[in-house]
């Protein structure tokens, strides 16, 4: 009779540690990607169309965050928030760090995409009497967001990978959960491989989703 490899039994036995870890990874990544994208689009708009006093704080923010390792960012959120009197869970601090990181990257992507739209597009919007807000919503953003889709998918997968750094501040995401299991059964290679496979699956799902959206909104 066929016997499945014994480590699969171990995986099944570890499901109550691994599954929550997997969910935590998905949750904090999703939270960071969604919030970071919204924040990033707003920052990108201000960087592109704002006056200098509006652009300045966002410029400083984007340059500062992009010039800092995500790891440092996560640690900073974890240690600085309580020091500033904000009681925040390790998960919250980690998700905040990832969000700030994601937003700074999305901001620059959005700015680049908006600036790449020919000036004639905004002029055509003006010429038919659209206000700036209407042009933004109906002319500029639909074009810019199409443009950023592939880069945005790339940034999102970076966030999922960066979420492993939360293990250092004690968030039991997929990597830390895996390490806890390995500490029990010493099946180092097998469980790291398994964790790697799960990370790959999350990112592959994001890429498939991105490709699907890209195909749906592609212009003839």
């Amino acid at each position, binding site marked *: 009779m066929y016997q499945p490899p014994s480590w699969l039994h171990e995986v099944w036995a570890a499901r109550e540690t691994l599954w929550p870890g997997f969910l935590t990874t998905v949750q904090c990544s999703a939270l960071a990607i969604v919030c970071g994208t919204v924040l990033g689009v707003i920052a990108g708009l201000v960087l592109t169309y704002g006056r200098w006093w509006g652009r300045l704080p966002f410029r400083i923010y984007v340059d500062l965050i992009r010039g800092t390792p995500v790891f440092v960012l996560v640690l900073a959120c974890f240690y600085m928030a309580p020091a500033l009197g904000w009681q925040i869970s390790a998960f919250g601090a980690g998700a905040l760090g990832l969000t700030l990181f994601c937003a700074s990257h999305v901001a620059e992507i959005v700015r680049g995409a908006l600036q790449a739209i*020919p000036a004639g*597009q905004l002029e*055509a919007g003006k*010429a038919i*009497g659209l206000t700036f807000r*209407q042009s933004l919503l109906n*002319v500029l953003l*639909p*074009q810019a967001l199409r443009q950023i889709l592939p880069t945005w998918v790339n940034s999102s997968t970076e966030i999922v990978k960066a979420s492993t750094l939360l293990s250092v501040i004690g968030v039991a995401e997929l990597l830390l959960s895996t390490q806890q299991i390995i500490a029990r059964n010493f099946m180092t290679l097998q469980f790291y491989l398994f964790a790697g496979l799960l990370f790959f699956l999350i990112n592959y799902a994001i890429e498939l989703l991105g490709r699907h959206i890209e195909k749906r909104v592609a*212009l003839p």
Partner: protein
Amino acid sequence: MTDTPVTTDQPLLSIEGLHKAYGTTQVLKGVDLSMQRGNVLTLIGSSGSGKTTLLRCVNLLEEFQGGRILLEGQSIGYNEIDGKRVRHSEKVVAAHRAMTGMAFQQFNLFPHLCALDNVTLGLQKVKKMPRDEAVALAEKWLDRVGLLARRDHHPGQLSGGQQQRVAIARAIAMNPSLMLFDEPTSALDPELVGEVLAVIKGLAEEGMTMLLVTHEMRFAYEVSDQIVFMNQGRIEEQGPPKALFDRPQSTRLQDFLKNIHF
């Protein structure tokens, strides 16, 4: 916005002492121009003479520093309040812009929308027209420029000439009181120029008031009531096409016409 009653003898468009500078470079050095309803006026001149800039000042795609532009009696862009120039709010500027339509050299169709939606966008967002009404009107104008069959095509699927005709339909559907054409055929392959000029000529014959910038001299000659020759930011000479082309007065216009064959 102030509503001034429109009398028939009041010019539709009147430009008084228009000055425009990019930094220290004077582009328009005091331009006076007036247009009656139903007239077709063409601006000609060598590049850098300020004709495109003048056109773009009329719908405030360019800001100007001195003088004023009145369209249907309404001051475009700025108001004089106690001797100070005050710019209109964005809402008023947008409303004024909707009074003119514009066809661009590069068409500037919205690439993410099909031909029909390029036309309906302004109708729905600016005129607040219900979708079905906007579609019906857009179809009427696409038919008018001969492109109803292409209503679901995106700009990328249309030739340059077809794109420009959609762009004209997009502008005309808004029912502007003045149409601006900024070198509408300059970016087209020679064999596509004719179809666009035919559309513009048709509109002129229907009584559309139009201000054109073009290098198509034969077309300007045929379609215009007035031709204005610009040189170095000023109007050098103007008159009906026949008089202007047959008996140019200024040496600059004589030189300009010497280099043009039609």
